[in-house]
C-alpha cells in the first residue's frame, strides 16, 4: 500500500525515492515532496489532534499558513516541535511524530474532552478556574497545560548552529510567484542590485501549483526559466526557502533563510540564517492565501482548502481522494474540480453557495448552485457531506474555497490599516505601507493572473526608474485572462454542530458569537477572549473569516468591525535564529586581564565581573575553603606585600590646555590646581546630584592627565565625559581616549611594597617617601628602560602603589614582580581580598554607589566645593538631597564578636531595625550593603546605610536577615575600621 494516492507527473522526481517515518512507521516519498505531500501520498489524512478538544485533524493547506499539520521533527536534542509539515522539505531519514495526544494518534485518550465541549467555550478558563485562588497555579494550570497544547520541547540544549548575516540591495522583491518574478526581471534588467526572496524551497509561487500556461509553456516551466535567467545575472541574489518576517524602519527587513539541508550534511553549518536586508525599495508580491468557510464539522481530516488540493495534485502528483467534492463561493474553487477531472480523479459534486449559473461543466459531477454544506461525517477521515438541500453525498475529500485574502501582512508592520474591498470580499493594503514599499499582484488585490504579471513587470520598471536606473524594454509575459468572482460566504447555520474558524486554537463560530453576546465588540477583545488567531499560524486562514462572522453577528459592516494589528514576525522564528552565534560564552565578548595566563598557572579561582574574568583568590596547597585563601591573602598583604591585577579599572587619557578646568567641572572637589606629579581622588555626580562614580586622576605633565574609573562604570563615565565636552563645552581644549585595554595595571600593596618596587624600578627614578610621597604620580621606567606609570595610591589602606605598563608587558611584569617579591613572601591577591581590605578601610564601592546616594550620604559632604560649578552641584543642593534623616553610609560591627562565625555567611543584605521593633517595611531603618569577615579584627564588619547614620555612631540596632534567619545586634560605627588616621599610607 505504498503511496496509494500518488499519480504520474508533478514537479517531483519520481525516480528518486526518499524514506521517512511517521509515528514510527516507515514510509516513502519522492525528492521534491514536502512532508505533507508524502503523507497524503501514503493516504495519511489524520496527522494530529486539536489543541483543546483533541479532535482528529488532517492537512488543510499546502503552505506556511497550515493550522493543523504541525509535528515534532527529529529526535533527542534535535527534536523540533510545532513544525509545519506543509513546508518541511522531505529528506531521507526524516522522523516525524504527531503531537498533542495520549496513546496512539488514532485513539487519543484525551479525545474525551470533545464530549465536554459545551463547557469549554470561549472564556471557559477565565470563568471557571477562578476559585480557590491557590488552585490556579498548583492544580488547574498544570492540568490544562497537560491536556491542551502543542509539541513538547526536548528540554535539551539546541545542538544546531544559527547565524546572522547582512545583505544590501537597491530593490528587494518579496515573493517569487508570477508577479514577483516579473518584477524581479524588469528590476534586474535595469541594472539595480536586486534580492528576490521566497519562502518556498522552489521559486514560482502558485505557478508550481496551477495549470496556467505562460508565454505558451507551462507556468512552472516559465518560472523555472525566469529563475535561471535571474540566477545568471551578477546584480541579482536569489534567496529561496527564505521568509521575510518583518518590515522595520528605513528599509530594513528581517529574513530567515532555511539551510537545513546543508546543516544536516555538515553540522558546523548553520541550520538557519537570520538576515538583515538593507534595501532602498521593496516590491511586495506575497500573493494571497485562501480562506475557509465555517460550516458544521468542517474540521474533519480530508477537508482541505481547494487550492491545496490543486497543489498536491499538480505539483506533488497526489490525488488526496478518489471521490472528491468541492464547496466554493468563488470561481477559483471550480478550477480544483477541473484540474482533478483533467487528471482523471473523480469529482462527485461541486457545491457553490452563489445564486449564479455554473461557472463551467465538470464531467461526472453533480452541480449544486445556491447550496451550502451544512454538516459532515467521518471520524478519522471524512466519509460524507450533508447539503442544505437535504442531500447526503459520500466523499473522501472536500475541497473548500471561501475566497482569497491578499498577504498584506508586511504592509501593516508600520501600523498600516488595511481597507475593506466589497467586490473582492477581502482586505486590501491601503496607502499607509512602510516607506519605500510598493505592492503588486494578488497581494494588492489584483486577482487575475494576466493583470498581476503586467503589474509586477511595470512595478519593477517604475521602482528602478525612481532609483535612477534605466527601464527595461522587455515585454511582460502573457497568459489567458481568467476572471475571479466571489460572493461573501462566512458561516453556514450549523445547529448543534460546531463550525470551526480557527483550527489550531479550536475556536468555533459559536465561540465568536458567545463573545459578541457577552459584550466583546472590538475585534481585539474577541481575539484575546477566544484566543482566535493567536496560535502559531497567527490566524492566516481564520482571521478574515472570523471578522466576517463578527460583522454578521453584530449586524454591521466589515469596515466597522475592523481588523487586528499585524506585527512581525510574519511566520514563527526560532529563538535560536535571533540569538545566532551569541550563545553561552559567545553571548558577549570575554575580556581577560594580562595576568590571566599566569593566574591560571597559579590555579586561581576566577569570577566574572561584567565581561571581565578576574582572579577571585589564589588557593595554596592545604587550603580547602575559600576563606582560608582570602584571609591569608589579606594578612600577608597587610604584613608584607601583595599584588593584585587592577587592569579592569577604566583608564582615560586626557590631553589639552583645558583639561584641569574640564576635570574641575566633572568632579565635586577642586581639580584646577592639581600639581604635576600628583594624583587626586575625585567624586563625580550625575546632574541630579546623585553619586555616579569615583576614582583617581593623576597629572603626568602640565597638559596630560590620566583618570581611573571603577570597572563597572568605565563605559558610562567615558560616554558622560564625551557628552560634557561635545555638548556642553565644545571649545574646551580637551582630547580624550579610553586606554583601559592599552595598560596593564597592578596594585602593589603592603609595608614592603616600596622595597619590592625599588628592585625593578630603574635607578634614576627615586621612589622614596620623600621623593615620591603619598598620592605621587609619575612616568618612570622599569627593568632597564620599559616605560611605566607609577601612582602612589591605596585601596587597601597600606603603603601601596599602582604600576601600569603597556599591556604587552603585563604578563612579564607579574612574573618579574613575583620573582622580585620572593624575599618578602609576596603573594598575589584576588578580588575577595581586595574587597575585604576596602571594607576594612571603609571605601565605598559598587554596592554603596547604588544610584540613590548623594555625596553627603557617603560622608563626603566636606569634599564638595562651593566655589565652582560642576555637574550635579546645583541639584545636589536641594533640601531633600542634604537632609539629616537620609540613608547615610556608616560602618557596622556585631555587638557579640562571635556572631555569624558559624553561619557561613556575612551580614550583607540584612536590614536594620531599632532594638525593640518588629522587622517589617514600616520599621525598616536601612541595610548592610557590604560585609566580610575581617581577618585583622577577627569578626564580621560591614558597611551600610541607615537613616541619619552619621549622628548615630555608638547606637546599637539589629541586623535582621529574614531570608537566612539571622537577627543580631550591631553597633553603628565609623566606616573606617582599619587605620582611621591613614598613617600606614604615608610611611
Amino acid at each position, binding site marked *: 500500500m505504498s503511496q496509494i494516492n500518488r499519480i504520474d507527473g508533478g514537479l517531483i522526481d519520481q525516480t528518486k525515492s526518499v524514506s521517512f517515518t511517521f509515528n514510527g512507521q516507515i514510509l516513502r516519498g519522492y525528492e521534491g515532496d514536502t512532508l505533507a505531500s508524502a503523507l497524503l501520498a501514503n493516504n495519511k489524512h489524520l496527522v494530529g489532534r486539536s489543541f483543546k478538544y483533541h479532535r482528529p485533524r488532517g492537512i488543510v493547506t499546502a503552505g506556511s499558513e497550515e493550522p493543523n499539520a504541525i509535528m515534532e521533527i527529529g529526535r533527542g536534542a534535535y527534536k523540533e516541535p510545532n513544525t509545519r509539515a506543509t513546508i518541511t522539505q522531505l529528506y531521507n531519514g526524516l522522523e516525524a511524530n504527531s503531537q498533542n495526544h495520549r496513546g496512539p494518534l488514532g485513539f487519543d485518550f484525551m479525545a474525551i474532552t470533545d464530549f465536554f465541549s459545551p463547557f469549554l467555550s470561549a472564556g471557559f478558563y477565565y470563568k471557571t478556574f477562578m476559585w480557590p485562588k491557590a488552585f490556579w497555579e498548583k492544580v488547574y494550570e498544570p492540568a490544562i497545560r497537560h491536556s491542551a497544547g502543542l509539541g513538547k520541547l526536548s528540554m535539551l540544549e539546541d545542538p544546531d548552529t544559527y547565524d546572522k548575516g547582512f545583505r544590501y540591495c537597491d530593490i528587494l522583491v518579496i515573493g517569487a510567484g508570477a508577479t514577483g518574478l516579473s518584477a524581479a526581471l524588469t528590476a534586474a534588467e535595469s541594472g539595480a542590485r536586486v534580492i528576490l526572496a521566497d519562502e518556498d524551497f522552489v521559486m514560482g509561487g502558485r505557478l508550481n501549483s496551477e495549470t496556467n500556461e505562460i508565454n505558451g509553456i507551462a507556468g512552472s516551466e516559465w518560472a523555472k526559466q525566469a529563475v535561471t535567467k535571474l540566477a545568471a545575472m551578477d546584480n541579482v541574489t536569489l534567496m529561496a526557502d527564505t521568509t521575510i518576517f518583518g518590515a*522595520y*524602519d*528605513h*528599509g*530594513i527587513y528581517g529574513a530567515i533563510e532555511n539551510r537545513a539541508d546543508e546543516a544536516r550534511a555538515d553540522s558546523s553549518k548553520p541550520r538557519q540564517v537570520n538576515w538583515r536586508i*538593507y534595501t532602498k525599495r521593496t516590491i511586495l508580491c506575497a500573493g494571497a492565501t485562501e480562506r475557509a468557510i465555517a460550516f458544521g464539522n468542517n474540521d474533519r481530516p480530508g477537508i482541505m482548502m481547494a487550492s491545496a488540493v490543486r497543489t498536491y495534485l499538480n505539483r506533488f502528483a497526489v490525488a488526496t481522494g478518489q471521490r472528491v467534492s468541492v464547496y466554493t463561493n468563488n470561481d477559483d474553487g471550480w478550477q480544483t474540480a477541473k484540474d482533478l477531472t483533467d487528471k482523471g480523479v473523480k469529482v462527485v459534486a461541486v457545491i457553490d453557495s452563489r445564486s449564479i449559473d455554473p461557472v463551467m461543466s465538470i464531467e461526472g459531477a453533480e452541480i449544486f448552485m445556491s447550496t451550502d454544506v451544512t454538516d459532515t461525517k467521518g471520524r478519522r477521515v471524512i466519509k460524507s457531506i450533508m447539503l442544505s438541500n437535504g442531500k447526503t453525498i459520500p466523499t473522501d475529500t472536500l475541497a473548500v474555497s471561501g475566497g482569497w485574502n491578499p498577504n498584506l501582512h508586511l504592509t501593516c508592520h*508600520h501600523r498600516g490599516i488595511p481597507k475593506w474591498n466589497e467586490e473582492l470580499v477581502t482586505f486590501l493594503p491601503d496607502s499607509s505601507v512602510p*516607506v519605500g514599499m510598493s505592492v503588486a499582484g494578488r497581494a494588492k488585490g489584483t486577482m487575475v493572473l494576466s493583470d498581476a504579471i503586467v503589474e509586477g513587470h511595470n512595478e519593477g520598471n517604475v521602482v528602478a526608474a525612481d532609483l535612477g536606473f534605466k527601464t527595461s524594454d522587455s515585454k511582460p509575459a502573457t497568459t489567458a485572462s481568467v476572471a475571479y468572482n466571489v460572493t461573501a460566504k462566512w458561516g453556514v447555520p450549523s445547529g448543534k454542530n460546531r463550525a470551526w474558524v480557527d483550527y489550531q486554537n479550536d475556536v468555533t463560530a459559536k465561540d465568536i458569537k458567545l463573545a459578541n453576546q457577552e459584550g466583546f465588540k472590538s475585534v481585539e477583545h474577541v481575539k484575546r477572549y477566544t484566543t482566535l488567531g493567536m496560535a502559531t499560524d497567527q490566524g492566516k486562514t481564520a482571521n478574515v473569516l472570523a471578522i466576517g462572522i463578527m460583522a454578521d453577528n453584530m449586524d454591521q459592516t466589515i469596515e466597522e468591525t475592523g481588523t487586528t494589528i499585524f506585527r512581525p514576525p510574519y511566520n514563527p522564528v526560532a529563538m535560536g535564529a535571533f540569538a545566532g552565534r551569541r550563545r553561552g560564552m559567545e553571548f558577549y565578548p570575554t575580556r581577560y586581564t594580562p595576568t590571566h595566563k599566569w593566574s591560571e598557572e597559579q590555579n586561581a579561582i576566577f569570577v566574572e565581573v561584567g565581561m571581565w574574568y578576574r582572579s577571585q583568590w589564589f588557593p595554596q596547597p592545604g587550603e580547602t575553603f575559600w576563606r582560608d585563601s582570602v584571609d591569608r591573602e589579606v594578612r600577608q598583604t597587610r604584613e608584607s606585600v601583595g599584588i593584585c591585577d587592577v587592569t579592569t579599572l577604566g583608564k582615560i587619557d586626557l590631553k589639552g590646555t*583645558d583639561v584641569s*578646568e574640564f576635570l574641575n567641572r566633572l568632579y565635586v572637589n577642586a581639580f584646577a590646581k592639581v600639581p604635576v606629579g600628583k594624583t587626586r581622588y575625585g567624586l563625580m555626580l550625575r*546632574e*541630579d546630584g546623585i553619586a555616579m562614580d569615583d576614582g583617581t586622576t593623576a597629572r603626568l605633565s602640565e597638559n596630560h592627565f590620566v583618570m581611573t574609573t571603577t570597572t563597572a562604570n568605565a*563605559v558610562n563615565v567615558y*560616554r558622560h565625559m*564625551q*557628552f560634557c565636552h*561635545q*555638548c*556642553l*563645552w*565644545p*571649545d*574646551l581644549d580637551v582630547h580624550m581616549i579610553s586606554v583601559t585595554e592599552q595598560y596593564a595595571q597592578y596594585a602593589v600593596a603592603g609595608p614592603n611594597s616600596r622595597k619590592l618596587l625599588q628592585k625593578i624600578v630603574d635607578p634614576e627614578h627615586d621612589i622614596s617617601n620623600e621623593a615620591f610621597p603619598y598620592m605621587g604620580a609619575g612616568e618612570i621606567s622599569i627593568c632597564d628602560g620599559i616605560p611605566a606609570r607609577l601612582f602612589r595610591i591605596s585601596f587597601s589602606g597600606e603603603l601601596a602603589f599602582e604600576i601600569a605598563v603597556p599591556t604587552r608587558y603585563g604578563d612579564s611584569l607579574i612574573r618579574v614582580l613575583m620573582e622580585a617579591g620572593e624575599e618578602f613572601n609576596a603573594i598575589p591577591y584576588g578580588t575577595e581580598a581586595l574587597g575585604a581590605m576596602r571594607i576594612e578601610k571603609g571605601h565605598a564601592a559598587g554596592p554603596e554607589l547604588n544610584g540613590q546616594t548623594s555625596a553627603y550620604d557617603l560622608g563626603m559632604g566636606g569634599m564638595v566645593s562651593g566655589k565652582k*560649578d560642576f555637574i550635579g*552641584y*546645583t*541639584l545636589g*543642593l*536641594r533640601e531633600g538631597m542634604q537632609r539629616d534623616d537620609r540613608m547615610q553610609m556608616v560602618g557596622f560591627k556585631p555587638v557579640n564578636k562571635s556572631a555569624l562565625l558559624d553561619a557561613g555567611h556575612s551580614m550583607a543584605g540584612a536590614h536594620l531595625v531599632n532594638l525593640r521593633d518588629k522587622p517589617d517595611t514600616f520599621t525598616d531603618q536601612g541595610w548592610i550593603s557590604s560585609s566580610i569577615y575581617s581577618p585583622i579584627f577577627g569578626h564580621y564588619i560591614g558597611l551600610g546605610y541607615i537613616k541619619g547614620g552619621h549622628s548615630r555612631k555608638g547606637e546599637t540596632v539589629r541586623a535582621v536577615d529574614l531570608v537566612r534567619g539571622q537577627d543580631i545586634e550591631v553597633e553603628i560605627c565609623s566606616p573606617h575600621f582599619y587605620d582611621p588616621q591613614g598613617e600606614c599610607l604615608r610611611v
Partner: protein
Amino acid sequence: MIINHPLLGPRDSEEFVYLGSADLINRPTNWESEEAAEDFYQYLYIRENIAGDNRELWYHEQGDQSWLVVTRCTLTHEIKSVELAQDVSRAQGRSK
C-alpha cells in the same frame, strides 16, 4: 533605523546609544543666581512629550564617539536631519 552620520554616512542605529532630548545641551550657566535651582530643575526634568519632530541626542559609541543631534519624527521614525552635537552646541552660543 539608519542614522546618516554627517561624517561617516549611513550607519545602523545598533551602533549608537540614545540619551534623550537635545535640550540637554542647554545646561544653565547661572549656577550662582537665585534662579539656578529652578532653571536646573527645568533643564533636567521638564520635557515636551512631542508627537512629531523631536531633536534628540545619539552617541556613536561603536563608531567615532561623536554625539549627534538627530531630528526624528516620533510618529513615523523618519529622520529629518543629523548634525554633530558640537556644531549645534556652538551654534547655540556655547563655547568653553
